[in-house]
């Protein structure tokens, strides 16, 4: 900490307000100095604009943080970055408000048992207690009895540290991260088919396509800034196909909206492929030159004629034919997908069925033709590239591959025998906690109490642990269960990189010093490592020093970051990996040379068999429950449920149901699954299938969609099946209250947001999409 705020300001990356004074590199941002120095309000004279990116979703919009004379973030200004070209969504606009929010944790919290109240303690005491508990648990039950769960909102440097800390300092195999709940199905499918785990094309390719297929993605609410690309394509006359059980804002304007039943995606896509083959629309040259496994895929597709798929998916068979013709006949077509098809016990298969379609029609590796995955979390892509996932080492290396293990041990300076084997996935770790196989846990910037399925199991798992520490900057529902909470920095108080949905690495800059008492995650991890006796391997004073090791650790792998430096990122506004040398321009579009990252350079197609979702329908539970996001909130809501404007925009969850069930808007509707039941206000709309209920998942119990969802996993990606489970709906008396987020002792909750959260809902109040601001 420094006493003089001016000194702090000097260390920040600042774009001067006068364009003629901008350093040469910043010109590449195109907007350097776009804000005139003499804006008319006196309070703006002297403010600085720090170029950075949004902390939330995988689009990673560029923005400026406005910093006042005292070195404090106080506002946001749009930034003309390539990704978003000034556009922002409501989360991005309000993000800056969390930096100096009154709920921020500013001292470590500690208690020796869960029956006690938290008290604020010194860093010394919190670190000592944590380390003594780690040692006690590991000495009694073995190293693997202590686990680590990371987060995909962390900068890539920090995710690299999490993976290294687990293996080198904790010496435990049990490390995973909440990106496991995000796009690992797509990652798995892409790895199988292409040998590389990322989107094939940049967002800007959408502007060039003739047919855009969006599957399982509510782009309008989850990735609003991407809609400018969708509309750009529409302006050029591109056909838009949307596959989604709900009529979302994007589906509303689509040429073809396939409102299929949740959990039937691979049957649909395989049937589309069936029609493509039947009508002779396959690109046989492309298949012969670039793919393997086509015969098996063709044979499997023959088993899915439109009549069969139409019955499975609950859609007209003609739609399947229409989609096949539109996609296959387009000179350039693209498929983008997100959690809607990935959050399934057959998530990998769903993604593979889309890849089969793109490959069979030859829509791969050209400008305007290819595939993309829309990452939900800010660093969902980068977060798994450098060893935070249980089965991966830095550079996307496999932890079970002898050669890969040897390479990393050399870089880390440890013996190969010391490197633990692969661990289990996030949900499996919770089951292990329930079974007392994992007795202690450190969680870093994640909130499984809201974000994991089957809340009762999650709560039981966490309650069973003997010791639980959590890193966060607000007291999340999960942190409120911990023994120790470490107050760490927000994204605006440190520098580091993230990789967005296009695999474009972007740099976040530091805009202000952290409040007194708050430390960076890097500092806390290194300090814990030092106390665990691994200090020599964790001598990292800042993010830059971690990034330099990360670059070396990724060199020569598929996820090659070696050529990416902080300086280059600042000059260019982002570089897509692989980027092997410092003069390499990066790789925005994959496979332009027709080669994949498999040794044979081919696309490995896999035949896909559809199977029903894991939670079977019966007379008691005849309908599908599906979950998703709203535009105002981010994931578990620990951040956005504290920001006034966002709470006002969407104060509480709702159950979206079709008018045929006889409910009035706003009436309490009880949603019952085999895991439990909860009562939400009904949002009655024709924009959803009659057999489907939708509930957004950003709130904790008793208004949590995840108290109802099933903890069934995809066998390959281990992603939970959030997007479909069996349910029924009933009339109820009153909707369940929405609890306020927990607040640490000594902190005052934001009065403005408290009011709208707890206001009881009049039974017939109009809900809109959970919108309170109406005229």
């Amino acid at each position, binding site marked *: 900490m420094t006493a003089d705020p001016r000194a702090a300001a000097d260390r920040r990356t600042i774009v001067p307000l006068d364009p003629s004074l901008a350093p040469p590199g910043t010109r590449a941002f195109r907007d350097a100095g776009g804000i005139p120095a003499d804006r008319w309000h006196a309070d703006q004279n002297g403010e600085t604009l720090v170029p950075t990116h949004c902390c939330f979703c995988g689009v990673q919009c560029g923005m400026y943080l406005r910093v006042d004379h005292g070195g404090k973030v106080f506002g946001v200004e749009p930034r003309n970055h390539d990704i978003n070209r000034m556009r922002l969504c409501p989360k991005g606009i309000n993000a800056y408000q969390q930096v100096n929010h009154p709920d921020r944790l500013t001292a470590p919290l500690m208690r020796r048992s869960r029956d006690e109240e938290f008290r604020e303690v010194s860093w010394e005491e919190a670190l000592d207690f944590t380390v003594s508990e780690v040692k006690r648990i590991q000495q009694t039950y073995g190293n693997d009895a202590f686990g680590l769960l990371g987060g995909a909102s962390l900068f890539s440097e920090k995710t690299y540290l999490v993976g290294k800390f687990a293996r080198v300092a904790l010496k435990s195999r049990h490390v995973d991260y909440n990106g496991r709940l995000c796009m690992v199905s797509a990652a798995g499918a892409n790895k199988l088919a292409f040998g590389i785990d990322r989107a094939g094309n940049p967002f800007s390719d959408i502007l060039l396509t003739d047919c855009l297929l969006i599957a399982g993605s509510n782009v309008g609410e989850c990735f609003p800034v991407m*809609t400018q690309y969708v509309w750009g394509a529409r302006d050029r006359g591109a056909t838009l196909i949307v596959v989604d059980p709900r009529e*979302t804002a994007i589906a509303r304007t689509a040429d073809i909206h396939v409102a299929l039943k949740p959990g039937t995606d691979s049957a649909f896509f395989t049937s589309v492929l069936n029609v493509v083959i039947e009508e002779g629309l396959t690109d046989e040259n492309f298949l012969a030159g670039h793919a393997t496994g086509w015969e098996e895929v063709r044979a499997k597709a023959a088993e899915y004629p439109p009549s069969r798929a139409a019955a499975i998916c609950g859609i007209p068979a003609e739609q399947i034919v229409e989609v096949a013709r539109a996609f296959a006949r387009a000179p350039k077509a693209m498929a983008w997908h997100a959690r809607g098809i990935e959050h399934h016990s057959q998530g990998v298969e769903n993604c593979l069925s889309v890849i089969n379609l793109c490959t069979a029609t030859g829509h791969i590796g050209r400008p305007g033709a290819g595939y993309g995955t829309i990452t939900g979390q800010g660093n969902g892509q980068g977060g798994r590239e450098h060893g935070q996932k249980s089965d991966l080492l830095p550079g996307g290396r496999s932890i079970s591959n002898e050669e890969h293990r040897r390479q990393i041990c050399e870089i880390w300076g440890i013996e190969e025998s010391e490197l633990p084997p692969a661990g289990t996935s996030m949900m499996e770790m919770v089951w292990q906690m329930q079974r007392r196989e994992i007795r202690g846990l450190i969680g870093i910037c994640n909130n499984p109490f809201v974000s994991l399925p089957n809340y009762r199991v999650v709560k039981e798992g966490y309650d069973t642990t003997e010791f639980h520490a959590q890193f966060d900057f607000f007291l999340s529902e999960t942190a409120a269960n911990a023994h120790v909470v470490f107050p760490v920095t927000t994204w605006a108080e440190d520098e580091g990189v993230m990789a967005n949905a296009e695999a474009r690495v972007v740099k976040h800059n530091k805009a202000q010093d952290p409040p007194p008492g708050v430390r960076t995650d890097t500092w806390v991890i290194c300090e814990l490592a030092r106390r665990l006796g691994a200090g020599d391997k964790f001598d990292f004073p800042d993010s830059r020093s971690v990034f330099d090791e990360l670059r070396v650790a990724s060199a020569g792998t598929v996820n090659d970051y070696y050529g990416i430096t902080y300086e280059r990122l600042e000059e260019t506004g982002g570089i897509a990996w692989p980027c092997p040398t410092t003069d390499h321009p990066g790789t925005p579009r994959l496979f332009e040379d027709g080669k994949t990252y498999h040794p044979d350079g081919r696309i490995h197609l896999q035949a896909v068999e559809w199977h029903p979702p894991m939670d079977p329908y019966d007379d008691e539970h005849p309908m599908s429950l599906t979950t998703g996001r709203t535009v105002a909130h981010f994931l578990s809501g620990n951040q956005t449920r504290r920001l006034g404007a966002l709470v006002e925009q969407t104060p509480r969850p709702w159950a979206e149901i079709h008018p045929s069930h006889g409910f009035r808007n706003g009436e309490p509707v009880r949603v019952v699954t085999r895991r439990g039941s909860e009562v939400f206000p009904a949002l009655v709309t024709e924009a959803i299938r009659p057999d489907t209920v939708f509930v957004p998942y950003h709130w904790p119990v008793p208004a949590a969609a995840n108290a109802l969802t099933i903890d069934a996993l995809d066998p390959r990606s281990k992603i939970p099946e959030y997007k479909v489970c069996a349910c029924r709906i009933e009339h109820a008396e009153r909707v369940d209250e929405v609890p306020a987020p927990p607040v640490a002792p000594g902190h005052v909750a934001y009065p403005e947001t408290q009011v709208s959260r707890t206001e009881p809902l009049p039974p017939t109040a109009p809900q809109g999409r959970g919108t309170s601001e109406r005229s």
Partner: protein
Amino acid sequence: MMGRTIFIDPGRCIGCQACVSACRECDSHRGTSMIHLDYTDEGHSVASLPTVCMHCEDPVAPCAEVCPADAILVTADGVVQQADTTRCIGCSNCVNACPFGVPKIDLEAKLQMKCNLCYDRTAYGLAPMCATVCPTGALFYGTVEELQAERPGVQVADSFVFGETEVRTGVAVVVPAERVQWPVPGGLPVVEINGKDVRR
């Protein structure tokens, strides 16, 4: 036609309310949003529609015309400013006169507030906050030529009829090409007040 202004394209709006949040960040009324977002066909569709001040030109902005305190100034470039804080008496005449339902009154401060096209930004050549951030381009700031270059064939309307009154506006609305019609019907005429037929 108009110079640089806002164009509203309801067909693109996704109801995300980024404009509402962005409007709160405008320095001339920080913390309060001047944008309304309407859900036009609730229960059937997710369609939504943003309303910003239309900056009426002809007849001279109705809000300014009825203001007894002369608090609403119209600048030479056609921007209808929000009330002058030293003049406004908070009488709400402007609220009643506005055919688009735009001005808001802060009862405690006895002050009218409304969109002034981000004069603090546009005066420096920047776009208003709402149109800058709108992810879809449902709010677009520029000239009609710039709009048409980006969206080939797009048609806009800048006059609306309310009953027998026609209002020409500085802000324009995108209308479906096959439904182009000037003036655009802006609302149903008022035919009855307190049980009395008020038609002439």
